């Protein structure tokens, strides 16, 4: 764990420094977490809600953080779980069948006024959205965020081997989609 993270955690556990330390934590991690969430849910408004919920959860449960993992993996884990919970509840509320989840996310992407990619980027996003949920999360974390497999294993609570296999399959599928739709 980095020195700055250790200082943030120590200050968060000190009641007198807590507010300021939390502000520093938010400023440090808000962008990384936002893009991680945004790639999962596609839509800005949804990503904003989930990011707020993520930090609220961090605020409420900072005392339970055991420092066995790094601050960064703990935050990513909460953000990932919040995103998955959000998508599941959205599916239940909208009565979306599992098979149509990708279409729902694609609609989310197309209707978002803050999507401004080129045609090839749109195609890449379409390919990613066709992946199963777990492969999609793994692909985004490895391809865009370039996280280490060891960190991903902590965040997603799975083995490095399983992650490598997931990424391999995901990358193959994305490649095939890009080639086929050229």
């Amino acid at each position, binding site marked *: 764990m980095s020195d700055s993270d250790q200082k943030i955690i120590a200050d968060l556990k000190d009641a007198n420094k807590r507010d300021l330390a*939390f*502000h520093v934590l*938010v*400023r440090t991690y*808000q*962008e990384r977490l*936002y*893009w991680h969430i*945004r*790639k999962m849910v596609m839509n*800005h408004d949804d990503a*904003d809600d989930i*990011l*707020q919920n993520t*930090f*609220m959860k961090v*605020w409420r449960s900072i005392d339970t953080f055991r420092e066995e993992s790094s601050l960064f993996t703990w935050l990513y884990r909460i953000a990932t779980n919040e995103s998955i919970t959000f998508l599941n509840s959205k599916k239940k509320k909208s009565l979306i069948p599992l098979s149509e989840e990708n279409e729902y996310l694609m609609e989310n992407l197309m209707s*978002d006024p*803050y*999507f*401004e*990619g*080129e045609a*090839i*980027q*749109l195609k*890449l*996003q379409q390919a990613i959205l066709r992946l199963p949920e777990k492969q999609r999360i793994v692909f985004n974390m490895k*391809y*865009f965020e370039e996280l280490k497999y060891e960190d991903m294993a902590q965040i997603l609570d799975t083995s490095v081997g399983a992650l490598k296999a997931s990424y*391999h399959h995901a*990358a*193959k599928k*994305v*490649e095939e989609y*890009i*080639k086929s739709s050229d």
Partner: protein
Amino acid sequence: MDELKNIAPELSKLKKEVPFSTPEGYFDDFSARLQMRIEAEKQTVAPRKTRFLQIFKPALGLAASFALIFLLVYVPLKTFMPDQENTVAVVTDSVDPNLMNVIEHLDESSFFTMLDDDNTNSEFTDDELTMYVSANFNDYEIYENLDIH
């Protein structure tokens, strides 16, 4: 990167750009908006506790008063007053259950035959007779019999 080139050569040629944007100044405002939400939560959690106490405080006070009065009255009474119910129970229990059984199952004619029979060494006492009458006749029947005789 080499791993990706081997698995997906076309994909590895693409620029790793995130095709999304955010509203202007989103990240500048985010921390302040979050702080407002935290402050709102702090304020809603604290009054909720006091509101709960405000609602239940009079009821709890009343219940405590009743409990205190009950203890002040009941405990001395229980300690110093004689136990009347137990005395009654002892009296009732002192009657021989076998005798009660015989009396209750005796029909009227057999009972009077036994009374009239001077040769019979009757062991009925007044109390046993009273027990029999009260167990087998109601008030109306007793008074009716008194009128006839």
